[in-house]
């Protein structure tokens, strides 16, 4: 469905963007709008599915279909949307609390299905909209300004979790490097299969530790790094390297595409294997009636239940 590049203005809504000044979400919003524009995606056939929190509002700011769902559940809604109509381009936007806290079960489970959607995690380590509690990616011992005591929980590494769960595209980018974020999001959308883009994102209001300055000093781009699995024999090596690289954190933080494997069949492929007309005639496209008269025949099913 990719067409030629479209004016980015078309991807903006009239809604006032009500994030705090300096919020990393602006970078993600811009990068995402640019990615959609450069890929020339049809707004009618593109869907942003978001969760709850500051990140969730992004569905209202991009002029494609926007489904602002429940806390943690965006991936489940997105799965239903995509499987009912695989022609749609489906992108999930969720915060780290949203996707890796309350929604972590869905985050893991969608990996088993390799549904061809993109999951963008707005990763800032705090629950901003509820005034700065510690979120799942905040390391233990860190005391951001709203915390009465240092964080008592260890952090989840979204990349490692995605690799373990079966994501076939695992990337990290940085909200203040809009160009990198845009290119990463484009690659994720273009990827055939389930893609994670973990976006490191300062929260200028509540995360006074992982600030822009903090990240700017540490972030570097993966170079001489080939994440793409080209044959089955490469999987072990590439996923192991990706795993080790994704663990790097502290003085140096790598961003880029860590791992990509398009050889795994998507869930849609798997359905098509069972239902040969699925992709041509998916659930959303089927006429279930003709002028009110039902078209689905249950004749054979009833026959199978006949006892006399």
């Amino acid at each position: 469905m990719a067409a030629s590049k479209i004016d980015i203005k078309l991807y903006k809504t009239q809604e006032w963007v009500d994030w705090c000044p300096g919020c990393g979400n602006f970078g993600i919003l811009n990068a995402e709008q640019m990615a959609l524009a450069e890929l020339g995606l049809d707004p009618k056939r593109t869907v942003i599915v978001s969760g709850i929190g500051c990140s969730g509002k992004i569905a209202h700011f991009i002029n494609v279909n926007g489904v602002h769902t429940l806390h943690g559940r965006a991936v489940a809604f997105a799965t239903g949307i995509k499987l009912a109509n695989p022609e749609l381009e489906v992108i999930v936007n969720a915060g780290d609390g949203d996707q890796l806290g309350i929604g972590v079960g869905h985050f893991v489970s969608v990996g088993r299905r390799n549904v061809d959607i993109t999951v963008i995690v707005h990763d800032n380590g705090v629950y901003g909209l509820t005034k700065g509690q510690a979120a799942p990616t905040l390391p233990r011992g860190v005391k951001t300004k709203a915390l009465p005591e240092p964080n008592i929980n260890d952090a989840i590494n979204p990349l490692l979790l995605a690799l373990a769960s079966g994501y076939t595209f695992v990337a990290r980018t940085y909200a203040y490097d809009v160009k990198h974020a845009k290119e990463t999001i484009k690659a994720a959308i273009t990827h055939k299969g389930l893609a994670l883009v973990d976006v490191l994102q300062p929260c200028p209001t509540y995360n006074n530790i992982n600030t822009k300055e903090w990240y700017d000093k540490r972030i570097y781009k993966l170079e001489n790094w080939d994440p793409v699995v080209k044959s089955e024999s490469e999987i072990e090596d590439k996923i192991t390297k990706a795993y080790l690289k994704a663990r790097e954190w502290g003085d140096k933080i790598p961003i880029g595409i860590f791992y990509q494997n398009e050889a795994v069949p998507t869930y849609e492929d798997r359905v098509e294997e069972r239902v040969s007309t699925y992709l041509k005639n998916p659930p959303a496209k089927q006429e279930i009636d003709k002028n009110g008269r039902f078209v689905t025949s249950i004749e054979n099913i009833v026959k199978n239940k006949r006892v006399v």
Partner: protein
Amino acid sequence: MVKITWMIGGPQGSGVDTSATVFGNALARAGYYIYGNREYHSNIEGRHSYFNLTISDKPMHSISDDINILVTFEAETIFQHFREVHDYLFYNKALESTKLSTINSIERETAEEIEAFLESVNVPPTVEGVLGYLRGRGVKLIPVEYDKILMAVAEEMKLSVATISRSRNIIAAAVSLRLLGLDKKYLAEAIRGLFKNDLFVKANLLAADKAYGLAEPAYGLKEIPVSGHRVQLDGNTAVAMGKIAGGVRFQSYYPITPASDESVFIEANQVVDAVDPDTKESRKVGIVVLQTEDELAAINASIGAALTGARASTSTSGPGFSLMVEGLGWAGMNEVPVVVTYYMRGAPSTGLPTRSGQADLLFSMHAGHGEFPKIVIASGDHVEAFKDAIWAFNLAERYQTPVIHLVDKSLANAYSIIDESELDYSSMRADRGKIVIPDGSYKRFQFTDDYISPRAFIGNAVMHYTGDEHNEEGHISENSANRIKMYEKRMKKLELADKEIPEESRLNVFGEGDVAVITWGSPKGAVMDAMEELKQDGISMQLIQLRMFNPFPRNLVTKLLKGKSKIIDVENNYTAQAASLVASSTGIQPTNYILKWNGRPITRTEIRNAVKTIMEKDEKRVILSGGQ
């Protein structure tokens, strides 16, 4: 009218279900109707399970506590059910000396209760003792040497006994059929119809042959000619078939008893024929069945699918529905037509996972924080379950709101033989509501005169949805005036539904009389069948079966209940939930209640006795406890 009751019991995993199915099929071939209830534990193998069937020349909708023929293979079933049997007991001769105390699979409370009863009638707690007791009460005892027959079959087929041990069930069916007086050819036909493996067909036919002569005909049943076809249906299958016929294209679920069988059936039939009603041209199309990681994902995936235009549903039971409530609220807020089939089981918490209940009516009425319209319907038999599954989609799409379809476990797992013609739904039409493919700009939540906005599918327009309060465009708005108007728009849809849906279609009325019985769900069958019997006792009743609780048919219910000398409410719960809805909608309180919450279905025997008690002693609240 023929009405014979037959029960078979045995440990789970031993083929009791198969036995009942084969036997039922054989009877259907001989022209008889069946209604059978299945009881089992939350256990894979070893715990006591049983089937209770009523055989009749007329369609049946209930079971009885009085059993004519009890078929057993082992000792536990004898101990569990000997007090229910009146005519014949088949038992395994090798087990005569078995003591109650040696049966590990029996629950302690049950064993103690049986032991206390036996002690009270001076009977030793052994199979032998029980047999003596039954003999004294005129029950005829028929020993069956299952092992001997199996060995003979094994020998003839040169197989091990273990390979063909399940033919034990066929032996039971064969002897039973003979007792009823029916030809063994019906059993042979049923065996050939049900078993695919030649080896088992042969072993079962051989076992049937050897067992058939073990009893003498006693009931004198004759073959009844059948016109048209008949089908064997359980509630899960009925709903699944209704959904498929009604155009479901996306079904999501998380495994739970007693709901999963419906989804599994849809998946097994996910490639369906779409036939043009005019040209008859047929093509294969697919239904997506998604097994999710939990019920949160199940309902939300279905909602997502519904946003794209697919008819979408999920099915679950109480514990799963508890998780779905969050998604239900989102669907209500966003006016999404999603159907939830809610199989009620024994609650609260995991409760009685494999038993029945009707204690979730008020929960489904009030599920979710805040106020939003939801339509709640409940089926009272298998044919209703089938047609209601279609109706649910129409209601959901017409009013753009979630529909909860209640089916109790008794109905889900019971099976009946019904005339195929009852499944004729050709008069039903698909109502997809206000669907549009917009040209230009589109407002998903546009204010309209009838409060229903034109609905476009994602893919055909750009639109926005949010669980926050929103404006016509689906963008967040906390504006007071908008809030008032949008809130009212949602709620008014229920008023519209109330105006449009004939009250006559929201309830069924059967019979006439000064006494009204109110019920819903599976007890309908027990009440209907008991009404026939009560007529002979000189008691005429009018049954009002409630089928839609939201919007509630208050005018018709008021009219029907006015002037009745008694109003008896019958439900499988403690607090008489439907009665409270009747009272809150009409101001009329039932005068008497028949309630049961032990997880077992209400039987027609229980209704008959309870109604008599109420008529004679005006007892306010009759509590039922039947069923093992």
